[in-house]
């Protein structure tokens, strides 16, 4: 260990434990395939998530073709339409967003940002990825079984999810539930790693209140996921039993198509509680990493410390905690006891306060900054627009009585796409443009990036902003065709066609992004170790891309918080966290 640098404050304890021996790969196979290096695992997670995400993208094209031009495409009927929306939703929420933020960004960034050599349980970390891949393969397999994938909607509400009026009742629903169970097992292995690594493997001097917000966001989301996913696991297992063994956890006495079934005594609404006890935290499991990452993007590219760091940390933690007591706002019209509405509307609107604080602090970080309009910054700005928009429409749906006319309409579809689809994905793009140079050593192509940004941001806004008004009009969601509806004017059908065309264009722009990812690998401008002049530890590695063990011979020692940008009197406009220099800007240690 290096000695204590002069001027370091007392927050740096001596090393208490000796370094653990890392697993060193012996062959190509253990280095790149069955790798135990979190960076490789992070890339594996990311590429797999992007690949399955492309399937979800194509599915969204197909469903938009049907909605925009009903009856034009003979290969889309009601069965396939419901299969498309179901698989699109589940893939995007679980297999893309959750996997990419936690498995992808989490694996790559946590050890680097906290100054560790790797995750604390590398072998379990490797298993986590392979089980995730298996879950994805099981999910994909459901496209090829008799009856096809399930068309129960991504919420998989019983009884219809396992009855014959729903496509995929034969095999699709079984594979879906199995795949979810596998995903949760795999995630738990990874999640334990992320949480324990943050708690136990931080570099000397990296106090919790010096951690970059990216790590705070991913860490909190991971803890939430470890608590929330078991509810889904239980629900999935019980529904599997209902489907395969004839149990009646969620199945009351019912008559299907004139036929008495042998179910009885179960509660369909119990599944909804289990599902949303997972499902609402899930929204924040996706959102909190995005909050964290976007904070770091804004701070770095505005050359200004994140405004109100401690408030930002507490907001993340409070949002995480509150998100466990709001779940039934998804169930205002589910038929649960109506008095629940008072409680859940109140908790739901309270959560708006810490969320709003985060928005203010992002914008106040821009204020009096020195804003570089790089690609990551552009995506961060677009995130704020879409997140504010989607967050505010959440105040409609969270307010129980306002939700009554709007629930199950296109307003809901527009809301959640804006707030947990578009907004986090814009952060993912911003994050990839930001960290790509660290991962590959090269910058991504700027012209392709600009094209990708403008089409994606403006296109996504043009898709989802007007869609709210279709819901306000009363158009229900999950309708494979509107048919004749006396209250729907012809112009609404034109709007649907417009949205579909824009969706195709935005989808195409993602292909440009993928091409850029591949092209820049060889042709991108060489980046150097720290192209953005960022303060956080991952930019201070001795090698770029970082080598196995991340730090060469000696672990970094942290002297300051992650946001010493434009410190008055400093010789450059950023002071890396491991910079021992004058101890200005130790605001992060005050707590």
């Amino acid at each position, binding site marked *: 260990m290096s000695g204590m640098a002069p001027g370091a404050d007392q927050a740096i304890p001596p090393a208490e434990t000796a370094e653990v021996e890392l697993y060193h790969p012996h062959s190509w196979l253990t280095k790149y395939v069955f790798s135990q290096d979190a960076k490789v695992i992070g890339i594996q997670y990311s590429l797999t998530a992007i690949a399955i995400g492309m399937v979800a993208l194509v599915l969204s094209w197909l469903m938009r073709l049907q909605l925009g031009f009903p009856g034009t495409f003979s290969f889309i009927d009601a069965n396939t339409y*419901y299969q498309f929306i179901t698989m699109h939703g589940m893939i995007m929420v679980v297999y893309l967003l959750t996997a990419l933020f936690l498995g992808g960004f989490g694996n790559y960034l946590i050890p680097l940002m906290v100054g560790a050599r790797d995750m604390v349980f590398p072998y379990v970390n490797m298993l986590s990825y392979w089980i995730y891949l298996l879950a994805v393969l099981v999910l994909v397999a459901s496209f090829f079984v008799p009856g096809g994938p399930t068309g129960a909607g991504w919420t998989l509400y019983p*009884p*219809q999810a396992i009855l014959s*009026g729903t496509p995929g009742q034969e095999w699709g629903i079984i594979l879906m539930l199995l795949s979810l169970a596998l995903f949760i097992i795999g995630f738990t292995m990874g999640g334990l790693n992320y949480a324990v690594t943050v708690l136990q493997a931080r570099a000397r001097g990296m106090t919790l209140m010096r951690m970059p917000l990216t790590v705070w966001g991913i860490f909190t989301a991971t803890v939430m996921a470890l608590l929330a996913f078991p509810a889904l696991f239980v629900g999935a297992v019980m529904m599997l039993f209902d489907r395969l063994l004839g149990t009646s956890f969620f199945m*009351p*006495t*019912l008559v299907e*198509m*004139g036929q*008495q079934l042998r179910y009885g005594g179960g*509660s*369909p609404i119990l599944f909804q509680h289990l599902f949303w006890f997972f499902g609402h935290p899930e929204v924040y499991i996706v959102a909190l990493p995005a909050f964290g990452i976007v904070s770091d993007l804004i701070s770095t590219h505005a*050359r200004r*410390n994140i*405004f*109100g760091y*401690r408030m930002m940390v507490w907001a993340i933690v409070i949002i995480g905690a509150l998100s466990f007591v709001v779940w039934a706002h998804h169930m205002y*019209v*589910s*038929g649960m006891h*109506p008095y629940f*509405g*008072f409680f859940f509307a109140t908790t739901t609107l309270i959560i*708006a*306060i810490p969320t*709003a604080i985060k928005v203010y*602090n992002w*914008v106040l970080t*821009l204020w*009096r900054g020195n*804003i570089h309009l790089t690609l990551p910054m*552009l995506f961060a*700005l677009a995130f*704020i*627009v879409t997140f*504010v*928009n989607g967050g505010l*429409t959440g105040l*409609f749906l969270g307010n129980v*009585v*306002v939700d*009554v*006319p709007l*629930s*199950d309409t296109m307003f809901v579809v527009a809301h959640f796409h804006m707030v947990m689809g578009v907004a986090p994905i814009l952060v993912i793009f911003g994050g990839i443009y930001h960290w790509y140079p660290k991962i590959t050593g090269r910058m991504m192509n700027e012209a392709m990036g600009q094209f990708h940004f403008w089409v994606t941001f403006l296109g996504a806004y043009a898709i989802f902003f*007007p869609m709210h*008004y*279709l819901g*306000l*009009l*009363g158009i*229900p969601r999950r*309708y494979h065709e509107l*048919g004749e*509806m006396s209250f729907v*004017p012809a*112009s*609404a059908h034109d709007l649907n066609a417009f949205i579909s065309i824009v969706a195709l264009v935005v989808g195409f722009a993602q292909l440009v992004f993928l091409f850029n990812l591949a092209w820049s690998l060889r042709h991108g401008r060489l980046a150097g170790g720290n192209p953005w002049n960022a303060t956080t530890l991952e930019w201070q590695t001795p090698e770029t891309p970082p080598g196995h063990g991340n730090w060469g011979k000696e672990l970094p020692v942290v002297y300051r918080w992650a946001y010493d*940008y434009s410190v008055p009197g400093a010789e450059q406009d950023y002071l890396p966290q491991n910079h021992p220099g004058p101890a200005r800007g130790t*605001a992060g240690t005050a707590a």
Partner: protein
Amino acid sequence: MAIALILVLVAVGSVVFHFLSPWWWTPIASNWRYIDETILITFWITGVVFVAIILFMAYCVYRFRHRPDRQAAYEPENKRLEWWLTIATAVGVVAMLAPGLFVWSQFVTVPAEATEVEIVGQQWRWSYRLPGPDGRLGTSDVRNISPDNPLGLNPNDPDGQDDVVVDGEDLHLPVDRPVKVLLRAVDVLHDFYVPEFRAKMDMIPGSVTYFWFTPTRTGTFEVLCAELCGVGHSAMRGRVVIQTQAEYQAWLSGQRSFAQLEPAR
């Protein structure tokens, strides 16, 4: 600098779209005008916040764009500002939540004089049951369902004998009379949804759910299913006819009771 301009255009364009859009809620046909008003309050508050934040952001991007001689301010925290923003947000939240909860308490409080009407959903159609002259609905159970007894009424319950069963036809209701709709499902979840009434509620097999409303204008309104119920979901349509009391009575007298429906007895 394009981004600052675009941000302004997004904010202004969204507001213009809101006011010029031809897509707005249907003319209301129930007593739930308060719901519409709460939505309007919410639109105003959230609209002002949205425009303020986006315009402020656009200003910052323009005013504090990178120049070689610029140095960003160093100000980790500003407690006063953060607290003021928190309090202002809390006030805004209360301004939306308070009327919302007030209206919700009305929504969940069924007036004593409301007539009970049963609506039954099954894949993929609607059936209805009205109390007969005794004003009471008889008990029912899906185990009783048969071709002759599509709603599963209890054949031994005297209260149910005079119930009016409307199967495969439109529901008729008298105008200006509060109705408590009792919702049942036979097979899977459904949701009785008439956009003009604003109210909706899921129907759950094995349970009876409800909501209440007062139709306020006559006419024929479309019933949609608002909870995914399988492959025929979007085809699960029906109609509600709201009539004057006299027209309604005339229609009602033409309907058959449960006792008349069952040929076996």
